């Protein structure tokens, strides 16, 4: 394996690229490790480019643009600066180190400077370990479509379909997109025309919210069927439909690498007491990453794990928290990347076992379902029990070990997360927790519990006008209850809703914008902990 560092450089057309030209014209030599990519503006450099570059084994990424003020496109370079700062943070979390990414200003006249930058960067990288992701290749064996699908038939009861259309009548997407029908997808597969469906967007449109499954008289597990099919469905379609340029998925993939040593615990609140080994493990999920990726939405996502730790400490629990916890793999699982999902699953289970934890608590319903259900399906019963934080807290309340000391006089409406509710049947604990808070009046939306509506996006897929319509509709419903606060037990619901409300909308923002709070944070507030 080569020892020489490889550098991918993104050069803006007007200043930096010209600068590099000048270096050449002036015969100023610099190390050959750099591979330059011309972009019109440094602002064009998407963090995803950088992440992907590293995923593919780059040891360093260099982004160069015009000096502040000189930007040919006014302020592209400033945007780039902000983005790269964030991307750096992600690299740090991943344990790759932010120093592998460098942003420099190089003007047309600064040929020498360009050469110098490259030289120095190459030198620094030579001192560092090579990118641990080097030489990594996907080795998944090609899957047999026929086999996968026919297996899925039996496993998901698809063959019992009565074609009653109850699924389409229940599907939040079908309601806004009358051309989309789970029934018709199923029927095509049953008649052997599945091939026609595979390459279309249909399979990637499903929110996997389980509403159809909940109501299907024939017990067809449509989302699970979709999941199985996605394994063989064309990935290109997925790439197109993937939101946030696929960064989340890329991160998950990166984490499958054993030699990755994350630095993800900076969020610890001071005075937080945790332990290396112990009974209860808190599985944080990807919150530290999302906190960076979705910084603009000022969700303060880290408040969630912080609240959890404080609450647990208050009731005398010192949770185990993994320093190198991997993504649970949920999104890979639901986008058909079984190979990487399995890797993550095995790693996480191994790490958890080491801590001798018997209880694993999650704040994210996706982690919850994945650990509790999908890990078990894959690796058999683990020797630890998986709880959602709401289950643990309501248990503590029942035991009288958790007490509220603040009064929060307000009207609160609660959103059931699909994976917590319909997938796993946890409806009452969150309500119990909220309703118990002094001063709070808990109100319900017309469609609640098993009839609750999905927040509109799942696994970062198909975030389009239809899912936005679903989101707006749901937010309106929440707002119509006259509640002051919308509480979710799933960070992703909040992310997706913040995302949609931060856009220009066809409705009056007044109808949809609401104060939102994560369940754990609300509890912490009610305990005067935040």
């Amino acid at each position, binding site marked *: 394996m080569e020892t020489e560092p490889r550098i991918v450089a993104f050069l803006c057309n007007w200043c930096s690229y010209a600068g590099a030209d000048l270096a050449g014209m002036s015969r100023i030599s610099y190390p050959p490790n750099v591979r330059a990519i011309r972009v019109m503006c440094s602002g064009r450099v998407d963090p995803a480019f950088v992440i992907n570059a590293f995923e593919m084994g780059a040891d360093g990424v260099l982004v160069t643009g015009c000096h502040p003020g000189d930007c040919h496109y006014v302020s592209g370079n400033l945007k780039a600066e902000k983005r790269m700062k964030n991307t750096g943070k992600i690299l740090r979390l991943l344990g790759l180190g932010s120093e592998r990414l460098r942003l420099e200003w190089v003007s047309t006249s600064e040929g020498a400077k360009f050469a110098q930058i490259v030289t120095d960067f190459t030198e620094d990288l030579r001192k560092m370990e090579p990118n641990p992701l080097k030489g990594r290749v996907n080795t998944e064996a090609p899957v047999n479509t026929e086999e996968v699908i026919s297996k899925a038939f039996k496993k998901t009861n698809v*063959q*019992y379909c009565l*074609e009653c259309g109850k699924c389409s009548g229940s599907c939040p997407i079908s309601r806004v997109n009358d051309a989309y029908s789970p*029934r*018709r997808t199923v*029927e*095509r597969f*049953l*008649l*052997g025309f599945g091939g026609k469906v595979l390459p279309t967007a249909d399979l990637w449109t499903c929110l996997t919210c389980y509403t159809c499954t909940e109501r299907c008289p024939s017990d067809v597990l449509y989302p699970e069927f979709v999941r199985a099919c996605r394994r063989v469905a064309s990935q290109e379609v997925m790439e197109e439909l993937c939101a946030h340029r696929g960064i989340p998925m890329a991160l998950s993939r990166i984490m499958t690498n054993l030699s990755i040593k994350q630095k993800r615990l900076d969020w610890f609140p001071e005075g937080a007491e945790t332990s290396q080994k112990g009974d209860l493990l808190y599985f944080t999920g990807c919150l530290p990453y999302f906190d960076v990726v979705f910084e603009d939405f000022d969700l303060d996502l880290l408040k969630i794990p912080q609240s959890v730790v404080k609450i647990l400490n208050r009731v005398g629990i010192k949770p185990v928290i993994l320093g190198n916890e991997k993504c649970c793999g949920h999104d890979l699982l639901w986008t058909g990347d079984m190979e990487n999902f399995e890797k993550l699953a095995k790693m996480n289970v191994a790490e958890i076992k080491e801590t001798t934890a018997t209880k694993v608590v999650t704040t994210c319903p996706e982690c919850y379902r994945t650990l509790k259900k999908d890990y078990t399906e894959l690796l058999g019963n683990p020797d630890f029990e998986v709880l959602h934080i709401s289950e643990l807290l309501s248990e503590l309340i029942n035991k009288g070990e958790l007490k509220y000391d603040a009064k929060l006089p307000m009207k609160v409406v609660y959103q059931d997360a699909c994976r917590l509710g319909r997938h796993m049947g946890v409806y009452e604990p969150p309500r119990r927790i909220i309703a118990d808070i002094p001063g709070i009046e808990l109100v319900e939306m017309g469609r609640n519990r098993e009839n609750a509506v999905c927040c509109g996006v799942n696994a970062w897929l198909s975030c389009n006008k239809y899912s936005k319509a679903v989101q707006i509709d749901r937010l309106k419903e929440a707002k119509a209850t006259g509640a002051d606060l919308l509480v979710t037990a799933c960070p992703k619901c909040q992310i997706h809703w913040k995302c949609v409300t931060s856009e220009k909308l066809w409705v009056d923002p007044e109808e949809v914008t609401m104060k939102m709070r994560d369940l754990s944070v609300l509890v912490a507030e009610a305990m005067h902990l935040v």
Partner: protein
Amino acid sequence: MEQVKGEEDLRIGVFICHCGINIGGVVNVPHLVEYAKTLPNVVYAEDNLYTCSSEGLSKIRENIKKHDLNRVIVASCTPRTHEPLFRATCEEAGLNKYLFEMANIREHCSWAHMHEPEKATEKAKDIVRMAVAKARLLKPQEEPEIDVTPSALVIGGGVSGMTASLCLADQGFKVYIVEKEGELGGRLNQLHKLYPTLVNASEGLNKIIEAVKANRNIEVWTSKVLKQIKGFIGNFEVTVQKGNGETANFGVGTVIVATGADVLEPVGMYGYGEYDNVITQLKLEQLLKDGKLEKPERVVMIQCVGSREEKGRTYCSRICCMTALKNAILIKDMFPDTDVYILFRDLQTYGGHYEDYRRMAQDRGVKFIKYGLEKPPEVILRQNGRLDVNVCHALLREQINIDTDLVVLSTPLIQREDARDVSRMLKVPLGPDGFFLEAHVKLRPVDFATDGIYVCGTAHSPKDTSESISQAFGVASRAAIPMAVKRLRTEAITALVDENLCTGCGTCVKICPYGAIVKDERGVARVTEVVCKGCGTCGASCPEKAITMRHFTDEQVIAQALAALRRELA
């Protein structure tokens, strides 16, 4: 003493009930009693708190004796519930029960006019007077009785007919089975396995046939045709055509129609008759039975071929969906990699376990395609002798083309050619769908309106084996009733023909829904009293006014009307 010579011997007693406060609280009962006493021929009147209570009843008995009453009136509630009670009481006191009359002064008076006591009392007086007017004309009646020959004729030796026969024979009744075919068994002879239990038809059938042959009480007449059936319940005269031109006669008490049904030959539909790889479900059944079905690569079954049509055969044949499902499953079990399609309209998987059959078929990968009446599938023959089935998938709105080597048509059960003869012979009706029409679709599913004649099995409507058998037992029960009691007795409220007035126009014969009136050898209408239900429609229609309705005579009815109008006969 009941036989009253002149008016003067009429001795009417009136018992007026307070019914707690139900009547007494509105109607002035004591006043009513006084009024009753003023009415012609009323020799006694009294009031009771509850006439229907045991003390009330005993007072009726006492006073019949004490005042030697020959007509009794109770003024209380509705006769529909209480008349039998009071009639019985009269009989206990030795008074013919048809000399009792009831005046409904509760439901029709005190309750309906609770806010108008005076008017209600006036009305109550009229009601009592009307009752008296009728009572004066009441005649004692003897209830008609006839003997019933404890034997039954079963027309048709299929599984329904044989089941009914066995059940009756086991109960000691003589049974004649008349089957026009050479052998017993009917349709079941042609069937392979039966749903829902998937037993071999032949197995079950043979058991039954042996039982029938072994049963001393059953006489089997195969290859025989019915020539004539005369008479009425209890006394039917049956004439059977023997092969050799001779006829045989025997008498039976009841007749059971179990003539079964035919299966439609769909000539000209979907290339049936033209292409030899287009066959009927029945043919497939036989191929499976004889193990002659060669492994097809693909099978397409088309449902509702000649049934549920827009015009003509509009009915659903009930058994086709299940038959198709069953055979599809059997084929799949024999040849797992044979493709089986079922082109259906609405899947008739009703009942407790028929849905399971759909799931069994689905488990085996049978493909279901719904088509609509407006766009039926097409079957086209290709050069290579294979068939193209083009069907519009009604639920995908897509044209689907299936290249197949076997097409199976599910055709309906239809009424037999000769059913009309049976219906004429027995004077029992056929329905719009050609099948025999029962007396009442809901509550008399196996009776004909005509007493003593019953129907079961597919002669009544399409149904599967177990359903036919269910009905066969049902018929056995209905037919056993008159044969078990041996003597039939009915209410005396029947029609009476005055033979001197009757011109034999036959209007009443046509009108009577029960076939209770026949023209006798002299061409005069004669009422079979036990069969007559006493509706009186014949009387009201008789052109010669030759028919009297016992217990509801014109005179009695008019008398009530006049009494209500406070008039004497004009």
